[in-house]
């Protein structure tokens, strides 16, 4: 019953927050934002398929912090490579074996990989067991795979328990 009236509480909460970000934190907007967040969730709920359960929500901020840091650091690295001569580049394709399952966790992982400089998720194999990655400068494939698995996949699996 509550599920029907409040179909997507997490979404609603996020939307409410975004509303306040967009406007201000005045009382009027708190009310209006709440209404909208609830209403939109109600309208949009049919469009969201079965939610992936977040098992350990507290790990999410950690994950984001790590991600942000990686982005900052490796951006500098990419900048250096981009500015350098093309000759010195050693781009390559890597197939990453996936342990993580589920639509959303896999998407999150792929997005993370893309966001972190030097790697782009190119495609997901049709059996969803491999993630193909293009690497701007590939020194050591095994190490790359290991770092991804360790740095991101593990954390995501913890968050989503998958």
């Amino acid at each position: 019953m509550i599920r029907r009236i409040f179909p997507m509480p997490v979404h609603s909460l996020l939307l409410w927050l975004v509303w306040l970000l967009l406007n201000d934190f005045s009382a009027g907007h708190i009310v209006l934002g709440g209404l909208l967040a609830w209403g939109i969730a109600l309208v949009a709920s049919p469009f969201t398929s079965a939610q992936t359960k977040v098992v350990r929500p507290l790990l999410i901020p950690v994950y984001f912090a790590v991600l942000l840091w990686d982005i900052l650091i490796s951006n500098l690295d990419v900048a250096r490579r981009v500015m350098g001569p093309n000759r010195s580049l050693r781009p390559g394709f890597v197939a990453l074996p996936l342990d993580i399952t589920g639509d959303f966790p896999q998407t999150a992982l792929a997005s993370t990989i893309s966001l972190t400089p030097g790697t782009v998720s190119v495609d997901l194999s049709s059996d969803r067991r491999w993630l193909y990655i293009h690497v701007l400068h590939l020194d050591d494939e095994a190490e790359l795979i290991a770092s991804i698995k360790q740095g991101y996949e593990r954390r995501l699996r913890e968050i989503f328990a998958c």
Partner: protein
Amino acid sequence: MNLLWIPLLPLLGTLVPLLTTRWERSQSAALTAVAPAISLVLVLLCIPDVFNQQTLQVSYPWVPQLGLNLSFHLDGLGLLFSLLILGIGLLVILYARYYLSEKDHMGRFYAYLILFMTAMLGIVLSNNLIQLWFFWELTSISSFLLISFWSDKTEARKGARMALTITGAGGLALLAGLILLGEVAGSYNLSEVLQRGDLIRASDAYPAIMVLVLIGAFTKSAQFPFHFWLPHAMAAPTPVSAYLHSATMVKAGVFLMARFYPVLAQSDLWFITVSLVGLSTLLVGAYTALFKHDLKGLLAYSTISHLGLITLLFGLNTQLAAIAAVFHIINHAVFKASLFMAAGIIDHESGSRDMRQLNGLWKYMPYTATLAMVAAASMAGVPLLNGFLSKEMLFAETLHQSTFGSLSWVIPIMATIGGALAVAYSLRFIHDVFFNGEPINLPKTPHEPPRYMRVPVEVLVVLCLLVGIVPEWSVGELLRAAAGAVLGQTLPAFSLSIWHGFNLPLLMSALAVLGGGWLYYNRGHLFAFQDQFVEWDAKLEFERNIQRITTAAARFTEWFDNGSLQRYAFALVVMALVFAGSPMLELEVALGSRPEQPLNWAVIAAAAMLIIGTITTVVFSHRRLLALVLISIVGLIVSITFAYFSAPDLALTQLSVEVVTIILFLLALFFLPQHASLRDSPPQRIVRDLTIASLVGAVVGTLCYAIITRPFESISSFFIANSKTGGGGTNVVNVILVDFRGYDTLGEIAVLGIAALGIFKLLAGMRLFVPASDYRGRPWSEDKHPIMLKKVSQALLPLALLISAYIFLRGHNLPGGGFIAGLVTAIALIQQYIAHGVDWVKERGVSGYHGIIAVGLLIAVLTGMGSWLFERPFMTTWFEYFKWPVVGKFELASAMLFDLGVYLTVIGATLLILANLGKLTTSERPKAGVSD
């Protein structure tokens, strides 16, 4: 009052035969005759007044703006013609009763005939120029119907068309002449016009008026060179020939000359033109008549000849000539109508009209033969018959006239030759038909006609004799009255006696008779001579000419309108160039007095990108996907430009529209060739188009420059001043859209909604080839809905909805509003379609977009109507500020409700378009194998 009934009764009478068409034929015919008979009685009742020089008049206002009144008058000329029309008309009704066969639709025939009678009466009784023309054209139409009565015959159809075309053309000339006449005279009232002859003849327009009116008269009266239609009108049933093409309609032309004689004659131009035309018609008609083997053909050309004779008389510059003309009108009508009827009897009873087959009918139908012979003798101008009298007068007047100055002596000689020819063809009519051996291969054995079919002929022949023997007693008064109306003054003395002593006209008559006899006697040589020439078939020639004109028209049209949009667009663009460019030639400098704002690099860079984007879009327009990507640059820069020049709302709108458009293009591109498969245009055309396009660009650019560098005052300060106080919003653009000019917006969303409905119609039943691979033969990817796209799109939907709510709510005060919000929502939903497909979205209960459009429009309209409750015009805004605990102060405005309507309409329309287009492919898509 009685006057009005004279034409009106027959008009009502047209219904009689139609209503009684199922009745016994004689009863129907008799009833049909009632209305004209009463009219005739009414005319007869008017005789004493008319003979007393009175003109009866009746007039009712009809269209005063045009000087057109319902206006009739009856003078001598009108009386004469009315008698002819009604009298002969009644005889024709009787005759036709027996002439028409059981198969013929007699009711229809009579209706046409009576309609024609009305029209003729209208002409001769009209006291208004335009009304006269009205009836004039009505005669053309009814005669068309009568000629084409046997519409299954080709000759009837073609003959009718030819008659209509020629007389119709003449009618148009007449109309022009009459209007000129009316404008010059300052009145369309005929009686008034007739009194202003001097004024008219002095006007510059006089020659034009005269020529135009005469063209009308000549075409109707079959004057050379417009005479050729008349013989082909003989395809009509013979009663029609007798009535229209001898006694009445063809006389409308000479009536016209008589009617306007007081105004238009009295000038050399008139006399020379009219007499020349008359004379040539007289001779051509008479000569041709001699060689016609067809009985009706002979009579037709004879009619032409006699009409020429009358015309000639009107063209001779003596007053007695005009009187003779009027006299001959009567005489010709009487003997020619009877001759046609006789010819009809012969045709009817023998089955043929060909004089080479018809011989020796005297033996079979002596009574009819006698009648015909008397009438023919009158036609030949034999003494003691009416034809003789008017011909004598002609001969006399040819001697008195001085139309051609010192060359005037030619006319009597020509007239005598014409007389001889008339004698010759009359002899032929008598001898070749009733004597000259035995009939050859006639379809029927000839015999006398039914009793009452002969009556009309008898009546007319009696009239021939009566007038021929006692002219003064029988028609003297009538002739005086009629001629008086023509000459419009006191008549010169003339005598209507048979014997004027031995004089030159009598000699000419004698010469004509002898010459005619001699001609007929030597006809063998003449026929042999004439046989050398290929017979000129006017009908063929006419049809051929029409065909030629039509072909030329078709060729021109094909050349001019080649069915190519490229030409149409070119014409449009060139016109735009001319229209926008020509005033610019007057503008001395484009630069105005407004100081130009400083340039900066950002602007230059943006402009460069825009120009590059434009040029490359054009250059690569055949590589379509590329062109699409390139044009996106332009769209983006345009949006930024709007933002830069203080138009944030525009920037937002342009951006959102841009994306929807790209999606639309992509959807369409799937079905269109990705590359232009064919070379677009030859190089010359590319150069031409580029030149024109550059010129248009230059003009538009210059206009733009001229505008933005000039100082400016507009009504806009009002909007800025009243936006908040009157419209309740601080975003003036939005307040204009939903309030000051909310009506525009209503129209705009209506356009959007209608477009969506139209597109739905276009898509309904569309069958398109769904390519199984891209244009280079590469199969499509198998991954219909990439999982990552799906996931993120799902996550974005609520966010996008929130943003559209944000944009919607702030629109009244800050950039945004219902339209942009609607597009954002629509795009977010389209993103779902792209990521998940049609079925997935449909499963989630989103459909029925036309309902959303309707609801959106309804909300907008009802909001507008809401103001009616407050006794204000449509769309008068209401807004109010509220202060609630916790929430604080906020504004509610009717404009927001209106904007909600906009929002919903936009969503409905956009999705109706895109989702349905997307749906096109979904059902049956060919499976493509992956190349592994």
